[in-house]
């Protein structure tokens, strides 16, 4: 019998329904509660900033890939995720040229130059943020309270003036800060969704937040305040869990989370900035290949762990 067009490929012949697109889509879903919170607290301008940043990121990706003569992959959704995460790092007052510059930096410099999705060593949103803070320190830290009055962040208040913010305001996000980082509640809802969908490993957020809590106790700081303030929740749940830039081994992910926690506390206590989340994650991003190498799991049937 002659049969045409039989597919002859190697096993396995069935695949799970999971796709890169589906994962990115889920991350976007998980970010929606925080987006809603930012609109509630900071108004429609928050939405405008997020949409602008996302559009810039998508356009930058498409144009960059066109110029580099590579297949255009904006449909994978990763530029949308980067756009939202980057926008979440802007204060509500940010002048609109900053999201534009930031989106281009994140996609072109931090991602495409390294070879695109999967090849970038640093979280693109955080890398761009670090650059923007260095270039426009005033504009990137021009905080307002949800009522519109200019304000310092709770961390700034604590570090510079010793004023504590009520826990409830911290928890729901009724405080000064970047767009997406203020509502711990909204971020936790999104994080829970990602955990449920299996897109993040508990080891990173638990390692990260746990370390911050323990260290703040050791240095006789208020652990609850430490956990709820600044970009920690956003960082621990969404930035430090970015698949591309974090270890792929289980032990590695725990090490990564703990490392982020240690650096964050050290910066908050001893550094020049009140905040330390982005730098700690970027630093640990740089260590990711090394961590992967030294946390290779013990192969079934081998007595000792041999590091490759």
């Amino acid at each position: 019998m002659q049969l045409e067009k039989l597919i002859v490929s190697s096993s396995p012949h069935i695949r799970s329904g999971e796709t890169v697109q589906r994962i990115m889509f889920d991350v976007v879903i998980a970010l929606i509660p925080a987006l809603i919170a930012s609109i509630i607290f900071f108004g429609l301008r928050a939405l405008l900033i997020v949409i602008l940043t996302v559009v810039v990121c998508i356009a930058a990706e498409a144009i960059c890939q066109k110029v580099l003569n590579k297949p255009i992959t904006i449909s994978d959704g990763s530029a949308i995720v980067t756009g939202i995460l980057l926008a979440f790092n802007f204060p509500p007052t940010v002048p609109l040229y900053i999201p534009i510059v930031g989106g281009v930096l994140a996609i072109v410099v931090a991602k495409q130059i390294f070879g695109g999705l999967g090849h970038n060593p640093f979280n693109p949103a955080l890398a761009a943020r670090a650059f923007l803070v260095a270039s426009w320190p005033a504009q990137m830290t021009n905080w307002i309270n949800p009522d519109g009055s200019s304000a310092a962040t709770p961390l700034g208040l604590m570090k510079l003036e010793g004023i504590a913010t009520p826990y409830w305001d911290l928890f729901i996000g009724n405080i000064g800060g970047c767009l997406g980082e203020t509502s711990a509640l909204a971020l936790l809802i999104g994080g829970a969704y990602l955990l449920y969908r299996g897109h993040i490993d508990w080891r990173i957020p638990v390692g990260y937040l746990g370390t911050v809590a323990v260290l703040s106790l050791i240095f006789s700081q208020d652990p609850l305040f430490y956990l709820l303030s600044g970009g920690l929740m956003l960082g621990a749940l969404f930035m430090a869990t970015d698949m591309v830039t974090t270890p792929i081994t289980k032990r590695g992910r725990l090490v990564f989370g703990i490392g982020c926690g240690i650096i964050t506390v050290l910066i908050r206590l001893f550094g020049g900035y009140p905040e330390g989340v982005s730098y700690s994650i970027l630093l640990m991003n740089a260590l990711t290949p090394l961590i992967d190498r030294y946390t290779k799991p013990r192969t079934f049937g081998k007595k000792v762990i041999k590091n490759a």
Partner: protein
Amino acid sequence: MRGKTFPVGGIHPPHFKEATEKKNVKPAQIPAKVVLPLQQHIGAPCEPLVAVGDTVKVGQKIADSKGFVSAPIHASISGKVVAIEPRPHPNGTNVMSIVIEGDGENNIWEGVKPYGNYKELSPDELRKIFREAGLVGLGGATFPTHVKITPPEGKKVETVILNGAECEPYLTADHRLMVEHPEDVVEGLRILMHVLGVEKGYIGVENNKEDAIEALKNVVGDDTSIEVVSCEVKYPQGAEKQLIKTILDREVPSGGLPLDVGVVVNNVGTAATAANILKTGMPLIERIVTITGSGVKDPQNLMVRLGTMFSDVIDQCGGFEGKPGKIIMGGPMMGLAQHNVDIPVIKGTSGILVFNAKEAKKYAPTTCIRCARCVDACPMSLMPATIANYALKDLIDVSEEYDALDCIECGCCSYVCPAKLPLVHAIRYAKAEIAARRRK
């Protein structure tokens, strides 16, 4: 219900067993022609003992080899040898085969006589019987059984495990065997235990086959030397190393064999066939095959004579449903995709799986997003993304350092990868390269 299982990795693909899991095994028609490849087992290929023009009878040995690791081939129908020539084999190459044209009589060879009770036969006599009967592992590995039950000097075997996990989706041949002939399975286990002189035997069955577990337990009764173990439904529960870990919590050392931890594992089908060989004297001339998938009209479990063409077998299941897009020998996780259906059922054919053109997908790989799903799914605790990545860069030494050789090719990593990367394919390449370099 939770059962015992192995601790790391594994996946939960849909079972796809509904089409055939409740269907009794039916005898397939005796084919008018069979093609019997001289290599249907792991080890040395056989040499023909017959010539073109000879008449042969069912059960007559028609090919054998002097090698220890080998298994003879027997005529599965009576008739005339019409050709001895290379023919397409399910492994994708052309293999020297004996072609028999049937006389429609099903004449049994005179030498086929019951061997009687195993208790009256010595282990060495039994090994010889199974060798002469051409018995090999019927789970798909086709390793000669007599070799498996001949532990080398100095190796002590304490346990025999029968593998009834049948963790591959779609396949139900072992399931039906355990439900319909649990006495053969248990008898086979007792025979293997007798040969190896061990006191303890286990039968591991995934607990989506409650009826099989029940049936086996009924036969075992209060015999405490045999335990039926209900295992969690998780692929690859039936992989040898994972099954031993599950039942005995022992790890077969890297590069080693179950023998290294005092265990011999056999498929339930192999055990039942061993029991039948003693009962009837008939060597291995047929096996149960599950014919299923979206591309088959009437999926079945059939007892098929070895050498029957895939096309014949599919015709007996109502033929193709729609246009076939992919034809696989074995299960969807580890089976071999075929170029056509003019190939014979061989000793290792546990299933014939047909996907229709719509279901047979080609997956377009994108890039690794380092999601670590493959790492988490690997039952051998490997880093598939890393090994595959180095393999594709031809950094074979590095992929070896990441223990590429320990890969059991179960396919879990490729299954879960959201980027649809052909990880196992790349790792197989690395393994082949490493092996080639070692031979040099």
